[in-house]
């Protein structure tokens, strides 16, 4: 029997196996940030265990950072302390850190691929569930808890039970205005938020083959929202082209050697998956969520389903939506384009393309938050900032921002926010805030109109 992409990478990283128990899996790259690492550093210090392979760790500051005036000292004492701890821990342990203001700083899942740190065939972890993003390169990448962060610090390994394999295939051609975000929101709306639990998911079919790396990252990013530990897409020419000549990518002859290896990774034709789902690209439309988990999604033209389940009703009550209602014409005062799902250059190009020559609606506060310093620079260099400025949008500095509202970027209580992020949980974007997940195109159109519109009617 053939092997899957996942099997090939996993099996080549198993150091040892405990009888009747988990396996010891070797981790190639460990990414860290300020929120989930301090307790792990403390743990090691308390037990007098040194960091085992500091040169396989890369750190960034992202969750808790301000998106304005980054050159000034951070006002919030707790946030400042957390960032100072990160700097100190990295300095004490010889770990590379791209701190606030550094040209490579950014959201961990945006900056690492951009620097060529993320490569096919690797095992990668981070104390953050959206580490699944890196699977877009054909890597095994997944989020871990802080105890596991400490384990990787101590041994560069984790004790894990091999997950089952799942494949989601989407074939066909996407309709106009349907973006990678819509593809993944559609899949989650069909499969539910726990269909992937216990599985690692591979996305296959021509829709993903024809997608850019940015689009593939958007898709893999949200694998965790259907419960899967990670998502992955077979590496191909698009992948190699993206990695080539990036800062930490293998260079010259080394790169060619790596490519030859990477080409052996895709799942064999006779590989068998534990679970398979297939969708048709033609069925996918621009999507919106109406509830408080990412599985509660509908096509923009559909109405909110009717369901008697008490948790479902509680969710609609929180959102102040009626079962059976349409979201078209729903007034919206906040729009957020950002987060590790949709804050790459391509996302801002899509938004700028729509916004160009139009004006933001007066009632809307629209925040555009690039995923990294490099994306921010690109936005300025490509002239997108000028388009945003002219249309009345606010381009902020990079970070997680309103995706989880740990910093000052909070959506006020009771307000709706059309957001390109990945989670619409109660209070996710600020206490009492109501999140509607959508693509950057739908978000941009909402900001222009001040309400949700049927985008499919506005594309020429």
């Amino acid at each position, binding site marked *: 029997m053939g092997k899957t992409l996942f099997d090939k990478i996993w099996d080549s990283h198993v150091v040892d196996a405990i009888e009747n128990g988990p396996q010891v899996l070797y981790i190639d790259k460990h990414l860290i940030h300020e929120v989930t690492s301090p307790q792990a550093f403390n743990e090691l210090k308390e037990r007098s265990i040194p960091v085992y392979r500091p040169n396989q760790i890369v750190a960034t500051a992202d969750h808790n950072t301000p998106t304005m005036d980054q050159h000034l000292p951070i006002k919030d004492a707790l946030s400042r302390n957390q960032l100072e701890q990160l700097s100190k821990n990295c300095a004490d342990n010889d770990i590379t850190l791209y701190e606030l203001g550094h040209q490579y700083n950014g959201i961990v899942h945006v900056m690492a691929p951009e620097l060529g740190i993320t490569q096919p065939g690797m095992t990668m972890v981070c104390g953050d569930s959206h*580490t699944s993003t890196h699977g877009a390169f054909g890597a095994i990448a997944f989020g871990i808890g802080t105890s596991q962060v400490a384990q990787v610090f101590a041994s560069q390994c984790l004790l894990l039970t091999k997950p089952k394999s799942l494949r989601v295939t989407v074939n066909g051609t996407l309709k106009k205005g349907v973006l990678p975000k819509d593809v993944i929101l559609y899949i989650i709306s069909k499969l539910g*938020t726990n269909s992937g639990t216990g599985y690692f998911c591979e996305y296959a079919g021509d829709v993903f083959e024809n997608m850019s790396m940015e689009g593939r990252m958007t898709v893999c990013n949200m694998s965790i929202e259907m419960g899967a530990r990670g998502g992955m897409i077979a590496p191909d020419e698009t992948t190699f082209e993206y990695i080539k000549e990036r800062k930490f990518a293998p260079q010259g002859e080394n790169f060619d050697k790596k490519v030859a290896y990477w080409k052996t990774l895709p799942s064999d034709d006779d590989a068998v998956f534990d679970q398979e789902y297939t969708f048709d690209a033609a069925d996918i439309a621009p999507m919106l969520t109406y509830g408080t988990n990412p599985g509660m999604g509908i096509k923009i033209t559909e109405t909110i389903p009717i369901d008697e389940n008490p948790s479902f009703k509680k969710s609609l009550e929180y959102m102040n939506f009626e079962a059976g209602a349409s979201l078209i014409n729903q007034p919206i005062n906040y729009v957020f384009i950002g987060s590790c799902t949709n804050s790459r250059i391509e996302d801002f190009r899509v938004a700028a393309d729509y916004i160009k020559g139009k004006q933001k609606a007066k009632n809307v506060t629209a925040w555009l938050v690039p995923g990294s310093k490099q994306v921010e620079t690109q936005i300025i260099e490509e002239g997108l900032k000028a388009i945003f400025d002219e249309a009345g949008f606010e381009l902020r500095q990079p970070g997680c921002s309103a995706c989880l509202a*740990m910093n000052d970027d909070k959506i006020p209580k009771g307000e709706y926010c059309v957001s390109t992020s990945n989670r619409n949980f109660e209070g996710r974007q600020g*206490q009492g805030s109501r999140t509607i997940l959508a693509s950057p195109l739908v978000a941009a159109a909402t900001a222009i109109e001040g309400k949700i519109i049927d985008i499919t009617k506005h594309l020429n």
Partner: protein
Amino acid sequence: MKKFTKIISKAIPLAVENVDTDQIIPARFLKATDKKGFGDNVFRDWRFDKNGAINTDFSLNNPIYTGSILIAGDNFGCGSSREHAAWALVGYGFKVIVSSFFADIFKGNALNNGLLPLQVSPKFLSILMKTVQENPATEIEVDLENQKISIKKLEISEGFDIDPYKKTCLINGYDDIDYLVSKKEMIEAFEAQRL
């Protein structure tokens, strides 16, 4: 980590499905750099209203419910990988969470902190939930050694699964770091052979 063998306790019902990590501990409380104090803010936005007043409708605030076992709806712990969720539940005093389904990362995080995520059948969960809601004095026994949960008064019980390695860790109070550090030589040999 404390050793875990058998627990007999009353339980607190939380009849909500898809309880996510943002509800267990809202993001604005993640700024600490140690593991202490998260228990005070567990389910913060359900326990207190926006003005900080106690929400008396919420089961954790209802003095008739006590105990170190939380009984929750399906798909508990979905969302973020933040271990702060497990620290908050442990900090509040929970030792066992019972649900019909747990999110993967949460399950691992809970086990790494001596908190048992105990998965039961949907049928057993609904009996358990109803029994505790109607009779808060009901005692529940969780026997890790024999992998069994029982509702004492009704004499109903159900077996549960747990990874044998994790079970040994819980019973003896060890954690994965001890194990992995003991494998250093093997890990070095693995690294050398890959170069």
